């Protein structure tokens, strides 16, 4: 494990309006193979993805390689990005997560197929709910920044370190019940943020 220290969350650089610009850039890559839009997305996400990979246990060389793979995948799959379904950060998070599993654990990541004829369909969603997504991301970030430190620490271990509840309990020496309740409290707070204002 190269560098696995506590990394505090930095929201000071979040620019108002930046999220929608990233969503639009992804759409432009998909529709027009727009390289300027790709450079915008790259400059925003590549440093964060590198930090994400290093926090997950990659050395610098592996992290760089995986970040490049993720960004090439972003270019190739941009046409499948639907801003009504996900924000740019969420969409890229799922690509990065899967790539990390593939590279570090050499495992497949079984996923839902949205075109599966066996899929039991969603209840029809209101347009409001879909449109709220990119605002959600920004609100979520400020909510994460104001979580109590002990809850944020567990949330970081789950998402950045890719650790299941049981391993977090082992590593922190906390009782499993405490890990569970801190995550539950943190997620409850964040969910309230998404649902109440969505």
């Amino acid at each position, binding site marked *: 494990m190269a560098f696995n220290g506590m990394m505090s969350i930095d929201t000071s650089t979040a620019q108002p309006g930046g999220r929608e610009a990233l969503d639009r850039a992804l759409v432009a890559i998909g529709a027009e193979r727009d390289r300027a839009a790709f450079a915008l997305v*790259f400059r925003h996400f590549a440093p964060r993805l590198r930090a994400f990979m290093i926090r997950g246990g990659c050395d610098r060389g592996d992290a760089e390689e995986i970040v490049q793979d993720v960004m090439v995948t972003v270019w190739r799959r941009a046409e*499948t990005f639907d801003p009504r379904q*996900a924000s740019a950060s969420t969409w890229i998070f799922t690509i*990065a997560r899967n790539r990390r599993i593939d590279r570090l654990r050499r*495992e497949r990541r*079984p996923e839902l197929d949205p*075109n599966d004829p066996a899929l*039991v369909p969603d209840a029809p969603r209101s347009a409001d709910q879909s449109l709220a*997504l990119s605002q959600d991301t920004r609100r979520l970030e400020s909510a994460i920044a104001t979580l109590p430190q002990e809850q944020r620490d567990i949330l970081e271990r789950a998402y950045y370190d890719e650790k299941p509840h049981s391993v977090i309990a082992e590593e922190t020496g906390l009782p499993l019940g405490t890990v569970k309740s801190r*995550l539950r409290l943190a997620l409850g707070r964040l969910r309230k943020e998404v649902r109440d204002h969505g």
Partner: protein
Amino acid sequence: MGEIERTLGGDGGRLPVHHIGEELLLDYAAGATSEAMSLLIASHLALCPMCRQQLAELELVGGAMLDALPDDECDEASLDAVLARLDRDDVTPVQPTAPVAADPAVDGILLPEPLRSYVGSDLNKLGWKRRIRGLDECVLPVGGARVSLMRIHQGASMPKHTHAGNELTLVLTGGFTDARGSYLRGDVAVTDQHVDHQPTADLDEDCLCLAVVDAPLRLTGRMTRFLNPFLRI
């Protein structure tokens, strides 16, 4: 998670009432579940719009967590390297895929993805083994845990047992009942070492399940202890 009314979805699909649970769904969203657990969770997601919604929220948190990482200076050489890769022929765009029209039903059983891709197109071609009276099992080669399809014959009762670890059972056809309730297509029964359960298949049809056990299972009934070597689950 509150139980919701059993209702029919848009195309007649039943909505599950027994779910994955937030803890395991968070592990899945964060990428911390094994391939075996992920296979079962993703197959439940196909049948459960409610858990899909919950997963979408957890992935939204994942996106916000990614965005909240330090915004270091971008390495322009790295950007140039990737732009150069985009010029190569093998970096072809992926088109959105259209819904599949072909009939994917196997023996009249519509298995959800991603399970269908793991199991293939003919359940009868799988290597089924009779474990005990009323129970056939087919072990699937998936990493991370013991993964199997179980066919409990209609009306059959399983021996009482507990697990050293966690067992997740996803019902695919038919249904079973244990002390905690009834489980039908799409429902997930989560059983840990504290639950001593004895599932009984419903009377009218065989119950086909996907079961994932992350540690050995122990029989607890008086008369069934000798069966352990045969079950080896």
